[in-house]
């Protein structure tokens, strides 16, 4: 309860939480909020200005931009959430193995260093080149990018926890490695990972938008913020609303995640207070 009060006292964290909650609601209720099918073409009213019929206007083939932005929110949440889970699973596995078993540490962490030597978006583009455009492949590509980042954090915590007296005591009692890792080490290294999670979520939303904007992410017919912006780019002069509305949606979403993440970090990991910026590591 005390934690919740600390969190609520920070106005920016509350704003962040509200923005994130709004985003989740929009994503869940997309079919109700969207009004029109985002795939339906209405060629007669292409590049229409925002009106009562089309709140955000229409694109170059007459699809309703409001519906596409709303469904784009859904895609962003799916991609962000899945990338986060994937990087947690991979990063926790590698980090726990590397931190606990000295023998594997060097090989695993050198491999992670190698992956980190690629700028994130470049590695994602290269992976997309081999995997081909699809939602699942975008998730896999971005997941691979963030596994090493989680792994490093986990390994760092494990190296400290492994030397504590309670782990030594557990070992002295003859408790097996698996049980020690699962019951004594894992629970003590999750909180920095959770904090990192919100930043990975934000980075994945940005990453998907960038990949789709470049034309190497989600296939073009699927409504995604990156796709809407990419199509709107050619009509910047005639139809600036195709850039402004999805742009505002991305910004609100990332801003919310960043504020929420900052608040969560202050709550769970006071030592890191003020050292923000992980979210830009794309």
């Amino acid at each position: 309860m005390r934690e919740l009060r600390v969190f609520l006292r920070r106005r920016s964290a509350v704003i962040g939480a509200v923005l994130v909650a709004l985003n989740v609601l929009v994503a869940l209720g997309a079919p109700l909020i969207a009004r029109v099918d985002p795939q339906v073409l209405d060629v007669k009213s292409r590049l229409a200005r925002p009106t009562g019929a089309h709140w955000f206007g229409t694109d170059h083939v007459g699809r309703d931009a409001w519906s596409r932005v709303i469904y784009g929110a859904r895609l962003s949440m799916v991609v962000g959430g899945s990338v986060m889970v994937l990087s947690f699973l991979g990063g926790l596995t590698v980090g726990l193995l590397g931190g606990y078993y000295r023998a594997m540490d060097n090989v695993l962490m050198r491999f992670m260093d190698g992956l980190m030597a690629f700028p994130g978006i470049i590695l994602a583009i290269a992976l997309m080149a081999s995997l081909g455009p699809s939602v699942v492949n975008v998730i896999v590509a971005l997941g691979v990018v963030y596994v090493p980042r989680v792994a490093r954090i986990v390994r760092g915590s494990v190296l400290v926890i492994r030397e504590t007296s309670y782990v030594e005591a557990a070992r002295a009692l003859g408790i097996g490695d698996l049980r020690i890792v699962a019951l004594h080490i894992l629970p003590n290294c999750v909180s920095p990972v959770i904090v990192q999670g919100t930043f990975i979520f934000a980075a994945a939303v940005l990453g998907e938008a960038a990949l789709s904007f470049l034309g190497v992410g989600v296939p073009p017919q699927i409504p995604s913020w990156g796709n809407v912006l990419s199509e709107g780019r050619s009509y910047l002069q005639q139809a600036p609303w195709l850039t402004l509305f999805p742009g505002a949606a991305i910004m609100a979403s990332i801003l919310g995640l960043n504020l929420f993440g900052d608040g969560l970090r202050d709550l769970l990991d006071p030592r890191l207070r003020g050292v923000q910026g992980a979210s830009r590591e794309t």
Partner: protein
Amino acid sequence: MIVYVVRRLLAVIPVMLVVATVSFILIRLAPGDPASVIAGPYATADDIARLQRSLGLDQPLPVQLVKWWGRLARGDLGDSIFLRRPVLEAVFERLEPTLLLTAWSMLVAVAVGLPAGVVSARYHNTTVDQSLMAFALVGLSIPNFLLGLLMILCFGVWLGWLPVAGYVPLEGGLWLNLRSLIMPSLALGLVQSALIARITRSSMLDVLREQYILAGRSKGLSERVVIYKHALKNAIIPTLTVIGITFALLVGGAVVIETVFNIPGLGRLIISAVLRRDYPVVQGVVLLIALTYTAINLLVDLAYLAIDPRIRFR
């Protein structure tokens, strides 16, 4: 100190080996056999078999990997399938715009971010600090390509001050070259300056709490000397680390920004290569960027030696 330099240099070797291996694996992840992709859709089974032999694809994977390392050591990145010429040649041709864009953006990022962070820390918890940090937060939340599009809309379409897109090479005149890079560099650099400002501010705040700052103030040093001579020198170390990371973000960002502004650099090269399934080009560009990034990080680490004497005695 020499031990530190040598150890740091040796640590680069495994990273480079992994980078080379990952880029080798990348091309093998692609569906289908590379030979049939290279030979194109009209090739006969015979053609493909011949190509497989000439590319060494009929040998076991570990042998291929070692040969790939060997070729890399000689600087041979293979040939582009689509452009029918060495990858390295194609890369060098596209290097100029990307290098200039990255350099200018870096300048913008540091020139805006560093002073903003210092000023924010000096006027901690005032309106100045809060508004600068609000800007930084917006900077962290806006994707660079979106900022680019908004700038095109504002300065190119509505105000007509700058060209909406396109690139004038250096030989077309310094001013025209610069003019074509103003918006792209600002779009990329301003977003990065947000990160630099935040890091600089927090490390300045940490340093300003130190005893020697209090000592300096109590012996009557001016605030200017305390901030710029004593505090900034010590606070710059974390910022330097971020500048290493910033390079990676800028190169990654350049790839995206080049698409926004139609700049024919490495970014356009890699994206068109992805769309044409020109795997050797994708592999080559990715590899070169990763190696450059590794080298920059090494230089940043060595720069600590020059700036922070404490490391020399470790």
